[in-house]
């Protein structure tokens, strides 16, 4: 297989599985638990290394996955003592576990074939070289098998428990009342996050896993209100940022995982600015439109109540608006034929009176021509 293809496939699998579980993390406001898990699986990986003496994927997935769940348990244990708030519990647990991992690596560097920097930003560039053997036969790059398997597991998890996850995410009380245990689902989800993180760890490293978990899902959250669509969009955005990131890394001759994280950020920025419904631009335009409609209605109401014949400067003073702003309102209303100029002032036309009569107290609904 082409090395480039292997890298892209691995990155695509990582991005897709991260986006699937990340969607639920973002919706449940637990992104930082994902961050914590991504750090604290490190000692699990190292211990699995030391015990088995090689990089066989299964013990590593299990060891690190177990540590991910331990992290969640520890955070909840600290929480439940009521001596620490949740943010602080997270903030004390994962650095301790991560430190443990770093120390283990430093102490047993000769036995553990793990580079500290790679812990942070992965070594996806070497994915094509690290192949998996069955007996003596090479069956393909290990990272692809691992992350493909993880993606399959995660997709299965989401597909099978879709209804339960959806309900417990949006209405945990109802889910509990209907007999789905939110706690069990919580731990299942955390296990899924752990497995995803461990699979991705070697390829993109601890911190960039967080980017893949959180950022595409957050961007998708700005683009849709439907869970199914959000999952699809998150996966799409994740895979797109993997591809874009790879291109960027080639162009700059820089870290692939870092570039992918950068790309997720860029896509989020686009969604943040341009999302048709929740984007800054759409929001600004909407605010402007609503503001205009409000001002137009105010002016029409004022004219109907006998403010006829006043000149623009006097009106501006009465409303406390800027002169130009008022002139804009007047211009738009005049072009619709709702008001007309008489002498130095303005007054309502019959069609304007009918319009304001028909609108009652609700805002004027019209589109700009």
């Amino acid at each position: 297989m082409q090395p480039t293809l292997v890298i892209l496939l691995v990155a695509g699998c990582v991005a897709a599985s991260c986006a699937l579980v990340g969607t639920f993390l973002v919706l449940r406001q637990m992104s930082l638990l994902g961050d914590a898990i991504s750090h604290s699986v490190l000692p699990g990986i190292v211990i699995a290394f030391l015990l088995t003496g090689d990089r066989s994927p299964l013990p590593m997935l299990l060891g690190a996955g177990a540590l991910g769940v331990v992290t969640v348990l520890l955070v909840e244990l600290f929480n439940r003592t009521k001596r620490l708030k949740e943010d602080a519990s997270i903030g004390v647990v994962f650095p301790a576990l991560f430190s443990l991992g770093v120390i283990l690596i430093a102490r047993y560097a000769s036995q553990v074939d793990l580079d500290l920097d790679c812990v942070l930003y992965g070594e996806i560039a070497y994915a094509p070289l690290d192949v998996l053997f069955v007996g003596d036969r090479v069956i393909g790059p290990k990272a692809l098998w691992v992350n493909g398997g993880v993606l399959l597991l995660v997709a299965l998890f989401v597909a099978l428990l879709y209804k339960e996850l959806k309900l417990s995410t949006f209405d945990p009380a109802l889910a509990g009342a209907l007999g789905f245990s939110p706690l069990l689902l919580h731990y299942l989800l955390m296990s899924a996050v752990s497995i995803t993180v461990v699979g991705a760890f070697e390829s993109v490293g601890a911190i960039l896993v967080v980017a893949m978990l959180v950022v595409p899902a957050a961007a998708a959250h700005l683009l849709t209100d439907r869970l199914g669509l959000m999952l699809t969009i998150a996966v799409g955005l994740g895979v797109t940022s993997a591809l874009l990131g790879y291109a960027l890394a080639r162009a700059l001759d820089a870290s692939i995982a870092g570039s992918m994280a950068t790309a997720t950020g860029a896509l989020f920025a686009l969604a943040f600015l341009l999302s048709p419904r929740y984007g800054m631009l759409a929001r600004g335009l909407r605010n402007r439109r609503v503001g205009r409609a409000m001002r137009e209605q105010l002016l029409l109401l004022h004219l109907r109540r006998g403010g006829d014949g006043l000149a623009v400067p006097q009106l501006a003073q009465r409303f406390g608006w800027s002169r130009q702003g008022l002139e804009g309102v007047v211009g738009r209303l005049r072009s619709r034929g709702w008001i007309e100029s008489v002498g130095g002032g303005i007054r309502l036309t019959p069609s304007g009176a009918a319009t304001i009569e028909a609108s009652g107290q609700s805002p004027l609904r019209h589109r700009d021509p």
Partner: protein
Amino acid sequence: MSLELSFTARNVLLGASLLGVVGGVTGCFALLRRQSLLGDALAHAALPGVCVGYLLTRSKSPLPLFAGALAAGVIGALVILAVVRWSRIKEDGAIGMVLSVFFGIGIVLLTYIQKLPFGNQSGLDKFLFGQAATLLPRDLQLMALLGGLVLLVVVLFYKELKLLCFDPDFAASVGFPTRRLEVLVTLLLVTVVVVGLQTVGVVLIVATLITPAAAARQWTERLSIMLLLAGAVGGAAGAVGALVSATVPRLPTGPVIVLCASVLLVVSLLVAPRRGLLWALLEERRAARRIRQENLLKDLYGWQERRHGDWFDLIPWPMLMGVRGQSQTQLARLAAPLERRGLLARIDGGVALTQKGFAAARRVVRKHRLWELYLARRLELPSDHVHRDAEVMEHALSDEAVGLIERTLGYPELDPHGRPIPREDAA
């Protein structure tokens, strides 16, 4: 271990203790404002700033690198604020996003720099996990300057920061510039991040902020003491971590500091007076024992009341064993401390109330019956529903509360079951 420290070890010790003190003090504000992970995000966000600082000046002198980190940290904080304010993404998502994306950009720049002809020996990667051994006196000077500045600001704005932590709404209502104070806290955090870059690196700085503060929080309810303690815990963890990593080969300083602080936190969580978990466990057991003792006294009282006998007569063990299904050994163990306090007298084969014990038992029964009557009369509960609640309240009500209940009920003679309610002792 020799007491003579090498030049490097001395620098590491100084740097780590300094960072510990400054981080601990500043972390208190992040902890109390429930922004523990903001520090983490700011630390990660500093990485691209360091790289840009290096790219612009191509020098490893600390000032431009620190300036870059400061600027990037501030931008990261602003992005978090903007995303939370102007989108439906919540704070956790915004923090996770800034943390990982800024770090990603930092990694891109870092790997880019390393491949530049002049970037080979940039040594910027020491900012990832820190490399305390590379601390030079000029780095220490800058750290001391920034750290001193942080502590000075904390002292100068102590009152304002305190109000911001505990009652921001009130602070705003009396005209404190809360917005600017929030920015100030963020700036303090970023400065600590910059101070810690070289010693523990961007990844673990959050622990130098939060862990000592969380440990200190367990020992006190006062902010001033908490700040001092957090500084002490942080400083101690830094010093011990530096010494340990200097003595044992292949032990990275940053992680050792973090683990030291974590150990101090766990110890604090367990043994800190009042808040400590062991303390709470002890308190719980003491309360349970007091309840069992009060129940025994009450049982003795009830026994004599039913018998219409003398209050101070001997009651044989077997009679008492029936009441709550306790064995004779259990009862004897329960009675022993009461006897020492002069409330009971143990005589062969049984136990009897003393004058003092009788008064104590009366107080418990009085609380029980008055509460039953209160529930029955005032809350109109049926009289067969009040006993269980009174079993609990008899151990919890204060003498004053019971006196008030008695007065409200008009000094009643009998409880809902028709048994006499003991009056308060004249003595």
